[in-house]
C-alpha cells in the first residue's frame, strides 16, 4: 500500500517516541563521535557537534526530510527507527564529508597562497572530490578507532569483544562462540566498552600532528 505524505506525518506523530527518541538520539550521538579527534566534530557541553549541529538537530532534520518526502520512507518495508537511523547516519556522514572537503580547500589555498582561484570554481559534483572526501573521512575515523583499541589494549576481555565486532560478530551468542566470553559477560563488557569509547572520544586529540588537515586548520 502506497503511503502519501499525510499518512507519513500521522505515522510519525503517533510513533512511540518515549522509547524511539532516546534510541535515535543515542545513535546520532555515537555516529557523530566518528568526527571527533580530527576536528570534523567538536565537543560542546560534553556532547559532540558538527559545526554547531548536535545530535538532536540531526534527529529533527531526519524527521523533516521524511515529512517533506526528501527522504522516502516505506513503512511496509522498514520500521521508523531503522529508517530514521539510516537518514541520521547519512546526514552526519554528509556533514563530516563537507568539513573534509572544506579543510582540503583551505589546505590547497594555504599552499597556493590564495583562495580566490579555488573558491571561484564550480562544485565538481559527486565525482573525484566526493570519493577523495570519503576516503579522507574513513582514514581519519579509522585512526581514531585504532587509537581507541590501543587505549584498551590492557584489558583482554574488551579487546576480545572489540575484535569480535571488528570481525562483524554482533550477536552475543555468536561472539560467545568465537571468543572465550560468556553471553552475560558480553552484555556487561559491551556497556563497559561503550562507556570507555564515549570517554575516550571526549578527550582524544588524535595522533594527527603530521596530518595535512590539522596543519591546514592551524594555519587558518
Amino acid at each position, binding site marked *: 500500500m502506497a503511503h502519501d*505524505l*499525510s499518512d507519513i*506525518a500521522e505515522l*510519525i*506523530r503517533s510513533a512511540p*517516541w*518515549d*522509547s524511539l*527518541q*532516546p*534510541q535515535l*538520539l*543515542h*545513535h546520532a*550521538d*555515537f*555516529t557523530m*563521535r*566518528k568526527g571527533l579527534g580530527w576536528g570534523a566534530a567538536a565537543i560542546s*557541553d*560534553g*556532547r559532540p557537534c558538527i559545526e554547531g549541529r548536535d545530535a*538532536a538537530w540531526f534527529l*529533527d532534520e531526519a*524527521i*523533516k526530510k521524511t*515529512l*517533506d518526502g526528501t527522504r522516502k520512507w516505506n513503512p511496509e518495508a522498514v520500521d521508523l527507527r531503522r529508517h530514521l537511523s539510516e537518514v541520521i547516519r547519512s546526514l552526519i556522514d554528509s556533514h563530516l564529508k563537507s568539513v573534509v572537503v572544506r579543510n582540503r580547500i583551505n589546505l590547497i589555498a594555504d599552499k597556493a597562497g590564495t583562495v580566490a582561484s579555488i573558491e571561484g570554481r564550480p562544485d565538481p559534483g559527486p565525482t573525484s572530490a566526493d*570519493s*577523495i572526501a*570519503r*576516503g579522507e573521512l*574513513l*582514514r581519519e*575515523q*579509522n585512526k*581514531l*578507532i*585504532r587509537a*581507541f583499541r590501543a587505549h584498551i589494549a590492557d584489558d583482554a576481555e574488551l579487546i576480545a*569483544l*572489540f575484535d*569480535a*565486532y*571488528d570481525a*562483524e*560478530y*554482533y*550477536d*552475543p551468542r555468536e561472539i560467545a562462540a568465537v571468543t572465550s566470553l560468556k553471553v552475560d559477560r*558480553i*552484555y556487561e563488557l*559491551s*556497556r563497559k*566498552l*561503550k*562507556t570507555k*569509547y*564515549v*570517554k575516550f572520544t571526549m578527550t582524544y586529540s588524535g595522533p594527527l600532528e603530521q596530518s595535512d588537515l590539522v596543519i591546514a586548520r592551524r594555519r587558518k
Partner: protein
Amino acid sequence: MNNIIDDMHARILTGLESTDQSIDDVKNSLITSGYDPDKELAAFKARLSSIISRHTWKAEARAKQSAFNNKVMSIISWASRSSEDIDAAFKTLMANQKTPHGLAMAFRNLDAITLEDKIAILNDYALLNHDDTSLQ
C-alpha cells in the same frame, strides 16, 4: 583510489549499538555521554509538535496552490474570444445581480474601459466564480 578503504569504525559502532537491550541501557548510555534523557525527550516532543504543525500548514498551502493552479488552467481566457463576445459578456457582468456592487459602481462609465481591461476583469471574475459557468 580510496573507494575500498576499510570502514573499521563503522563495524565497531554497529557492535557498540547492537547490544542495547533495554531503553534503560540506552538512557544510561546517554547519561554517560552528557545528556539528560528526560529533558531531551520533553524538548524533542515540543519540537516535534512544531515540526508537524509546520509541515501540515505547508502541505495545506501546497494543496491550495495546486487547486488554484488547476482552476486557472481550466478557465478559458477571454482573450481568445471575439470583441463582440467580450463586450456582451462584460455588459452582462455589470448588469448581473450577483456581480459585487462595488465592482459595478467602479465602472459606471463603461465606454471608457478598454477591451484589454474588460478581458482582465472577465478573467478575474471567472476565476473568482469558477463554479458559476454562466459567464464562460
